[in-house]
């Protein structure tokens, strides 16, 4: 009792604690300490220990009190501050750059401030496997579909004015480190005709691209060997590469300031209800509506059912799994119900020549990015050069370093599997990366350095003779949301699950289209149709109807 008398504040706190029903626990513990105080290690005396014990308790009691007062989150049973909210108007599955972009545009285009509650659910708070962090960060307008060109044009505009779009009061502005060096696509004789048509279409849409002949190439880029090149297209403005992390952090910061909740957990279940409806022809259709999303926390079995009105699937490489949770694809093949979302966590390239057969083993390919050093390499003005074989490289930083990924050389040479292992982004800066062959494991993302030596390097050295002497420093591999149907994105609602919208499947150019796609999905959700860029050819129904929207210029 003497310690309570000494600290009078603790006495009042004790009274209040009694009032809130914590009495029995405290009292019994207090009695316990008086008995066992001297056996608990070094203390100045049982009185001193009591004071320290009470100090800790006082802060706990204060926290409880603050949670009870208005404005706090009070849950008398247990602390729920780590769980997502119980209700949310829109739940976005996937917190990468596409998901955050949709959240941003939803909050920006809403009619009234605070009208829509948005929750973004991201599985991995380190983003170690997300395509955003592992991407090369390039942006270009040299596509073969007009919609893709328009998406890129708007995205470049967004990135250029990023400090106006994503400005948060009192926070420093973003530095995207954009290198406007442009893209240089090289074409052989057979592709030259297609390239000319593409460039004509791109210029019509407003992209600043020019065609170059091999002599002009040699004049402008003396380090290049133009053997086998018939035509090249060079982007003059608005093409280059930037830091994807910066965009991600900027979006995160801005959407949090706009009131979006970001929660780290995994979506494990959708609770939905079905309605039987009839089409005008008399056919019966079952329409589903998702009511709840179960979000499971990391490393625990605890989950929170979030009641929602709209679900947006922006889960990147894992969108197919999320769609399956919602029941998309569960039906007879060939029907609309049986049409799955054909997005897979592919780690390899698309084949440049469409005449090759599809790879027999779907999983276990590697899309590697190699980082090498070459002191005599192309200078600072070198654009991102895409070879006729599909391999490409670009300058990274200022120390004669380059990076470049591999085309699907595995398929062209008949290899069935390429070994890969997990290389998390946090370990990438480690300088002593062991270039050894490890056990083949399709779940991991390891890189095969011998593969680089045998398959990639000859193509690079042929195109840029300076690359004959290079030293590979690092490498990493990444997933991306590969759309096996036509390698273009899926945007818009599902015809049967009426409140699930897609924003995924961009197969390698999701990052550069993310601002524009976010806006398109937000328009679809808020208005019901596309307003600025018409992406009707990217709807889900094309998988059922078989209408491909193929993109030929894929890098």
């Amino acid at each position, binding site marked *: 009792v003497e310690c309570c008398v000494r600290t009078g504040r603790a006495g009042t706190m004790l009274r209040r604690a009694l009032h809130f029903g914590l009495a029995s626990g405290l009292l019994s513990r207090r009695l316990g300490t008086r008995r066992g105080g001297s056996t608990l290690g070094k203390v100045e005396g049982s009185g001193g220990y009591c004071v320290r014990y009470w100090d800790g308790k006082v802060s706990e009691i204060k926290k409880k009190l603050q949670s009870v007062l208005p404005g706090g989150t009070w849950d008398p049973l247990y602390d729920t501050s780590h769980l997502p909210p119980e209700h949310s108007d829109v739940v976005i599955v996937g917190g990468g750059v596409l998901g955050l972009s949709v959240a941003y545009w939803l909050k920006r285009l809403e009619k009234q401030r605070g009208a829509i509650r948005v929750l973004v659910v991201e599985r991995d708070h380190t983003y170690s496997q997300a395509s955003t962090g592992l991407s090369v960060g390039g942006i270009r307008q040299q596509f073969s579909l007009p919609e893709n060109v328009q998406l890129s044009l708007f995205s470049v505009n967004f990135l250029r*004015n990023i400090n106006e779009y994503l400005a948060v*009061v*009192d926070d*420093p*502005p973003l530095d995207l*480190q954009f290198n*406007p060096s442009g893209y240089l696509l090289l074409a052989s004789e057979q592709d030259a005709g297609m390239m000319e048509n593409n460039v004509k279409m791109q210029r019509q849409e407003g992209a600043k691209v020019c065609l170059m002949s091999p002599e002009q190439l040699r004049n402008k880029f003396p380090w290049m060997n133009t053997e086998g090149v018939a035509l090249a297209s060079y982007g003059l403005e608005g093409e280059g590469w930037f830091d994807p*992390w*910066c965009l991600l952090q900027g979006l995160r910061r801005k959407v949090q300031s706009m009131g979006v909740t970001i929660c780290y957990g995994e979506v494990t279940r959708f609770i939905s209800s079905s309605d039987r409806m009839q089409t005008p022809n008399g056919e019966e259709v079952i329409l589903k509506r998702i009511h709840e999303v179960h979000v499971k926390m990391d490393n625990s079995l605890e989950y929170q059912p979030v009641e929602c009105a709209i679900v947006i699937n922006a889960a990147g490489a894992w969108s197919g799994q999320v769609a399956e949770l919602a029941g998309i694809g569960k039906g007879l093949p060939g029907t609309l119900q049986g049409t799955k979302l054909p997005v897979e966590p592919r780690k390899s390239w698309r084949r440049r020549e469409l005449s090759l057969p599809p790879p027999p083993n779907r999983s276990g390919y590697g899309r590697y990015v190699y980082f090498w050093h070459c002191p005599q390499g192309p200078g600072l*003005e070198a654009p991102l050069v895409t070879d006729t074989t599909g391999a490409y490289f670009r300058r990274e930083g200022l120390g004669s370093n380059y990076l470049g990924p591999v085309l699907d050389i595995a398929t062209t040479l008949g290899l069935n599997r390429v070994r890969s292992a997990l290389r998390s982004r946090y370990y990438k800066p480690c300088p002593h990366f062991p270039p050894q062959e490890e056990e083949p494991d399709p779940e991991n993302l390891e890189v095969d350095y011998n593969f680089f030596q045998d398959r990639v390097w000859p193509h690079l050295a042929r195109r840029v003779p300076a690359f004959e002497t290079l030293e590979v420093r690092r490498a990493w591999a990444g997933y991306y949301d590969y759309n096996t149907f036509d390698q273009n994105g899926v945007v818009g609602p599902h015809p049967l699950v009426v409140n699930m919208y897609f924003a995924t499947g961009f197969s390698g150019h999701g990052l550069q289209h993310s601002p524009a796609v976010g806006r398109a999905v937000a328009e679809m959700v808020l208005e019901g149709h596309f307003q600025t860029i018409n992406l009707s050819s990217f709807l889900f129904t094309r998988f059922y109807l078989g209408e491909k929207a193929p993109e030929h210029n894929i890098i």
Partner: protein
Amino acid sequence: RFQAQSQYSPPQSLHLVAPVWNGGTRSIRGLSSTATPEGSRKKGRMLLQFLTDCFYDVKALREYLLQKQVSEVQHRNRAATHIKEHYGPDIAGAYFILKQGGAVKFRGKEWLGPHGQGRSSLEFFKFQAVPVEAVDASGCTINYEGLDNLLALKELQSLSLQRCPHVDDWCLSRLYPLAESLQELSLADLPAVSNPGLTQILVEEMLPNCEVLGADWTQGLILGPKEQSQDTARPLPA
């Protein structure tokens, strides 16, 4: 990560709101603070931040003022298409620069502008087919869209973009149409350019006939131990 790299002083737009309110709060608190002006500005900023975090109204008002500044800059950079159609790109470009507060020199004529001698600013409308030779846009609020007007000047020989607060890497990358005619370009003291030394090198590559002034290519490099005491250089972003 991005916070470590954005170490240059932020453009004035984001913090311009603070002095507006600082004046107000200082008068509310009276002149009781005996701290230095720097200290009281900092206190004002902290108070502002506290208010913004606590009250939605303050936050909304500050965001509105910020957006207003941004749209003001955009408004000043809008394209004067009607002038371009009637009088041609040279006169439209000259009109744009003069409206922004810069100075223009036509071939064979004198400098027109605030410090030049051209009093009546509409005299140049009568110049038919006289190209613009030199433009001094120091300190103007010209941005990426506004550069459209300058890029149409096909015979421009000298351009000065010193101290323009909104000219950044994107704007500089857009200067390639002037590669044939431009001989002198001044890029001194551009706050929005992230790495002046690197941009000097890249701009020199882009404009081979041009002499780029104002930025030293060693600016921004890590100095050796001898020179470290002299300059405040930022490390190069890798």
